[in-house]
Structures are given as structure tokens and as C-alpha cells.
């Protein structure tokens, strides 16, 4: 439409052009979805857990300022240092300042979608800090200079052959190697060095507990633990929506998170950080970056309940076939399509339309974000703000005008059915007909239902 907006359908074309890859991508993610189903179905009270989690989140968001203050107080008491960042820029500057104060020029990071959202890596690199992502998937995309394509499985779009090639170039592994075990070992050796050299570790946070001041980080590789215990300095970056009131609430969320994300009963490592390690420092950066605005939004505030489990991506039939990059937003998939326009409605106007409204995301979400309803609500907003391409807008106006009058509707129907029956194929199937690019049109019948019905009743009477 215009230079500042991205069009999901166009971006998707790049991914869908390679059909075997689409199929492979779809199946890899469906495999995760199936694992999730098995894990969820093993928990009898699953639906109750979802409801409870949703209630806790609703409650917490309603009283967020109080819980944030309580969290700060308790975190300080435990000896952590707490920083508040209004936006991405302030967050990045705070992190840089902490690093500079400690003379850090080598940083290891574990997974954090928040720092992706803030574009922290390029910012730090510009200021002379070497940043190494230590989550295997994140490291792979980092070595390829790509962003993650999924919020839990950052390199899900990359095949093992491609990883082999990449590692051969970057880490000196055997050419043509594809054995996942061999490649993982190589990455482990490479990362081990980075861990040892690092002067600071940065992690994301899954939950921050108000009543204790502790932060909880869930990983499967233990990289967050190594990265925050070898160096003396740990920076934990937290979106303000990650607060939960009580430690007991973790019993609800931890059961839901890993099952929803990967189908594991629990992540391999669930690390609780209560204050700094002895002789070290723990800095907690609480980041708003638009969250307060979303919280105040009457229509979309529930999107803040999200715990970033990725289940809605895995189940989304569009995401699985269009790939993470087609969304052109840090967070792809259903939740990204709600959050994207909240960040920039003009740029991301097409995301709420990248959805068949199947509703699978809404049913799978462990915290009951009403995802497909929010996407539909967004469409209304897009139109209200005049962001829908004018041709589509006009089409709908015309269709609505026809449908508002029975005779107009009947005549238009008759005319269309007649025309389609008589039109030669080249007139029906051309580049103007998006339906017909890959599908036959239905066979247009001579008589409509209402005509048949009238005839029949006429005869009966």
C-alpha cells in the first residue's frame, strides 16, 4: 500500500514459494503442537488451570502499580538493584551504563524476547560490547545475522543441513556435517569459551514475584544459569507485565508454561534468583515500552496476560505456513498480530488480516488471551482509522449496498450467475481473480435457492 506499511500476504509469498520447506516447517511445528496436546491432556484440571492463570493475570494487571512497587521493595531488600525504563531506548541506555560502569566489553545473554523488542544487541555492539546469545537457537540466528523467527524456537525455520553449513563457516566444524548431536557439541564447546570470557550475563525473565522480589527464568539448556553464575554481574530485563503476586502463583504458571510451549511437564531448568550471588551484583531492569498504554487500552489490555509460551504460534495454521519473518514484527503469529498494530498500526495494519479466524489460538492459550477476537476487533480499528487499502474498503461498501436491498441482491445474483456461466475461461481466470489462481470457481447454477423454493411451493399450492 505505502512505503511504511508491510503486507503479510506479500511477505508470505517469499516463504510459500518453497513448498517442501513450508511442509517441513508446518510439520515441525505441528509435532510440537501434538506434544503439547499430549502433555495438556495428561492434566485433568487443565481448563481450571487456564482459568486460574487468566484470573491471576487479570487481577495483577488491574493492580500492577502496587505489585510493581512491592516487587521493587522486596528485590532491593534481597540486595538487587532495580532500574525503571520507560521505553526501549532508556532500557538500552541503562544496560549500557551498567556494563560501562563495570568495564564490561564481553556479554553473554540467555533468551529474552524483551531485548529483541528493544533491539539491544545492535545497540550494545555499536558501543563496543561483544554480545553472544547463548541459547542454541538464538546463537544460530545470531550467527546468520537474523532475528528469531519464533519466540520459543528461534531457529525453527532453519534446517540442520543449513546449521551444518553455518557452523562449518563460523565454528570450523566438518564440512557437510548434519548430525544434530555433533553440531550441538560443537556449539557447546564454542559457547563454553564465551561463557568463560564473559564479564557479565544478561537474562530475560519469565516471572517476577512481588511478594518475594525474586525473578524466575525458565530454560532448557541451562545457559541462563551458567551465564549468570560465572560472571559476577547479572542483568535481568523484565517487562512489567511479568509480575505475579505470590510465589504460590508459580505453581499455576509453571505447570502451564512448559506444557504449552514444548509439551514438557516442566522446563529442564527453572531458576529462581533471589538477590545477587555472593560477591556479585544483580541488576533488574523493569521495562514499560508501551505496556502501560496497552494496559489502559479498553479493547486490547488482555494481550498483556501473555506469558510468551509460543503455543498460539505452533497451532496457527497461517504461521506454520508463512513463517515467522512474514510478520515483519519481533513477535510473530497470533499474539504478534495483536501486539504489532499496538506498536504501529500503520506499519502492521495487515497482520490482523493474516488470520482465517479459526480460533485455535484462543483455545490453546494457557492464559486465555482472546486472540482471534482481538484480531477481529483490530480489523474494525484498522478500518476506523482509515488504514485499510481503499480498494478493499470500497468493495465492502459496494457489497453492503447491494445486500441492503432484496431486489438489488436478487438481480445482482442473477446477473453474476448468468455472466459466469457464459464468460469464456480466460475472462474468468486471470490475474484479477485471486480465487481462481489456485482454485476453480463453483459451478454457478441457473436458479437460486429462493427460485427453486418458490417454484416448489408454487407447485404444491
Amino acid at each position, binding site marked *: 500500500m505505502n512505503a511504511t506499511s508491510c503486507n503479510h*500476504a506479500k511477505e*508470505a*509469498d517469499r516463504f510459500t514459494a518453497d*513448498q517442501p520447506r*513450508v511442509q517441513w516447517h*508446518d510439520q515441525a511445528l*505441528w509435532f510440537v503442537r501434538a506434544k503439547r*496436546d499430549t502433555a495438556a491432556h495428561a492434566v*485433568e484440571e487443565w*481448563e481450571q488451570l487456564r482459568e486460574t492463570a487468566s484470573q491471576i493475570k487479570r487481577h495483577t494487571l488491574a493492580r500492577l502499580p502496587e505489585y510493581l512497587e512491592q516487587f521493587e521493595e522486596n528485590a532491593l531488600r534481597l540486595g538487587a538493584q532495580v532500574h525503571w525504563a520507560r521505553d526501549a531506548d532508556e532500557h538500552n541506555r541503562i544496560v549500557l551504563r551498567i556494563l560501562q560502569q563495570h568495564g564490561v566489553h564481553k556479554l553473554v545473554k540467555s533468551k529474552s524476547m524483551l531485548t529483541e523488542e528493544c533491539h539491544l544487541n545492535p545497540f550494545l555492539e555499536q558501543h563496543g560490547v561483544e554480545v553472544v546469545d547463548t541459547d542454541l537457537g538464538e546463537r544460530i540466528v545470531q550467527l546468520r545475522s537474523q532475528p528469531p523467527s519464533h519466540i520459543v524456537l528461534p531457529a525453527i525455520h532453519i534446517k540442520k543441513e543449513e546449521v551444518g553449513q553455518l557452523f562449518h563457516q563460523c565454528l570450523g566444524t566438518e564440512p557437510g556435517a548434519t548430525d544434530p548431536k555433533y553440531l550441538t557439541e560443537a556449539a557447546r564447546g564454542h559457547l563454553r569459551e564465551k561463557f568463560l570470557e564473559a564479564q557479565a550475563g544478561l537474562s530475560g525473565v519469565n516471572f517476577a514475584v512481588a511478594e518475594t522480589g525474586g525473578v524466575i527464568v525458565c530454560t532448557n539448556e541451562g545457559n541462563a544459569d551458567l551465564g549468570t553464575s560465572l560472571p559476577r554481574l547479572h542483568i535481568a530485563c523484565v517487562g512489567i507485565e511479568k509480575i505475579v503476586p505470590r510465589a504460590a502463583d508459580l505453581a499455576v504458571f509453571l505447570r502451564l508454561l512448559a506444557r504449552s510451549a514444548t509439551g514438557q511437564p516442566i522446563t529442564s531448568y527453572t531458576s529462581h534468583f533471589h538477590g545477587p550471588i555472593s560477591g556479585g551484583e544483580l541488576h533488574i531492569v523493569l521495562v514499560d515500552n508501551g505496556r502501560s498504554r496497552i494496559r489502559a487500552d479498553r479493547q486490547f489490555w488482555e494481550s498483556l496476560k501473555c506469558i510468551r509460551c509460543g503455543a498460539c504460534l505452533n*497451532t496457527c*495454521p497461517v504461521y506454520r505456513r*508463512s513463517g515467522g519473518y512474514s510478520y515483519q514484527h519481533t513477535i510473530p503469529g497470533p499474539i504478534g498480530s495483536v501486539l504489532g498494530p499496538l506498536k504501529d498500526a500503520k506499519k502492521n495494519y495487515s497482520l*490482523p*488480516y*493474516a488470520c*482465517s*479466524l*479459526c*480460533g*485455535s489460538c484462543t*483455545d*490453546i492459550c494457557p492464559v486465555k488471551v482472546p486472540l482471534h477476537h482481538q484480531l*477481529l476487533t*483490530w*480489523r*474494525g*480499528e*484498522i*478500518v*476506523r482509522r482509515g488504514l*485499510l487499502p481503499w480498494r*478493499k474498503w470500497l468493495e*465492502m*461498501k459496494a*457489497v*453492503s449496498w447491494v*445486500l*441492503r*436491498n*432484496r431486489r438489488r*441482491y436478487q438481480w445482482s*445474483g442473477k446477473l453474476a*450467475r448468468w455472466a459466469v456461466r457464459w464468460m469464456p475461461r480466460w475472462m474468468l481466470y486471470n490475474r484479477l481473480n*485471486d*480465487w481462481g*489462481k*489456485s*482454485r*476453480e*470457481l*463453483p459451478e*454457478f*447454477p441457473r436458479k*437460486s*435457492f*429462493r*427460485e427453486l*423454493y418458490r417454484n*416448489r411451493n408454487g407447485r404444491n399450492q
Partner: protein
Amino acid sequence: MQVGLFIPCYIDQLFPDVGMATVEVLEKLGVQVDFPIEQTCCGQPMANTGCIEDTRPLAERFLAIFRDYPYVVCPSGSCVSMVRHHYEAYLAGRPGFEELKRKTMELCEFLVQVLGVERIDARFPHRVGLHNSCHGHRELRLGAASELVIRPYNKVRKLLESVDGIQLTELDRPDECCGFGGTFAVNEQAVSTLMGMDRLQDHQQAGSEVITAADMSCLMHLDGLIRRNGKPLRVMHVAQIFAGRPLPGSPQATSLAK
């Protein structure tokens, strides 16, 4: 019992036999069917594009046309869901709207819940794959969605199972979206097509001869792909199976056509 028959615009114009089959099924069960001729469309295409102001007059028409019927029955889960779940924005507080929401029902739902039908008196000796159309499945809850941890049930499937001679096939992904999605089918043509092709593949591996659904729109999309790609599959709306229609293209059907 009298019902107002709500036939979605695309069924009226493109699939008249689905409407006729619906009438026959209801009448056979003793229901008095009335088709108010003023009806056109529920407004879903506009609503799903976000064109709220272009939907409003259609919602208002719908209420005026159907408000006096004891029940409104429709052979499309998606259009029923539009009335029940999405008219709120246009009609909240209007006299008759709360009742309209309660009494507007999808065909299978009406058969099971209101008429208490347990057996369909029809014969269809074929291998049939049920496509659980999303809006009927996840908004009207015609069946238990695979995402939810609840007791399994499926009203459409239950009725189909009672048809004489029918063999229902088992899919790998029993409730994945077919990719129709209204204007999605053209806005996101490539992804929509891939989704549909995957459904066809699943039905083929399961051995379906016929794909059926409670929504003709999904079937229109799937049939378009079937015919373009020469797949050995057919589509039929559930009402057509319930009404005893033969398999399209079968010798029986051809002799009827003559």
C-alpha cells in the same frame, strides 16, 4: 413447530440444493419451514473485514426479518455464529435481540438440541470425512475442540454416524482450518491454498471419498482445489447427506440428473 429458515447468501446463489436439502430434512421431521424472502446476507464479509458501519444495516435487517420466529435455523455454523457472537456490537439492547441470539441455531444443533434427533433416516454407503468448520466448531461449540481438555463430543459427527451405511474416516488433524476464512481466501491466497491442500491430503490418506461439513463455504474452497487438481474427492454439505442425496458423480446421481 415453525422455524424461520435462514439461508446464507452464498448458499442461496451458489448452492441452492443445500438449501433445498435443509428444507427437506426439517420437513421430514415435521417442522414447518418458512423462508422469509426479504433476507439477503448476515453481513459477515463486511464484519470480518472490519467494516462495522457497512455491517450495521444488515444486522438491523436481520433482526427485523427474523425476530418473530420461535426458532431461526441455518445450514451454516459461521453465519449463525455471526448472529450469536458478533451482532452484539450492532444490536445490543435492541428489543428482541437477546431472544434472537438464543433461538438462532445451526442445523445440526437444532436437530440435536431442540428436536432431540438421535437417528437420521437416510442411507449413504460411502467413506466420509468430516471437516469440522471452525466457527461452528470453536464458536458454536458443535464439537469439542482438540485444544481443549474436555470430554470429547461432536454433534455433527454423532448425526452422521447414525446414517445408514456410512463409514466415517479418521483424520490426522481432525479440526485444522481449511484456509477459507472469507476474504482471507483471496487476501492470503497462497497460504489459504496451502492450508486447503493439506486438508485434502489428510482426507486422502484417511481414505475419504467425500468431505462433508456443516459449512458450505469451507467446502466451496476445498472443492475448488479438488477440481483444479483433479483429486479423487467430492464435497457434500451434511444436509445433503441427511436428505439422502446420492454421491455426486455416482451412477445413481447421474440417473437422477437425467
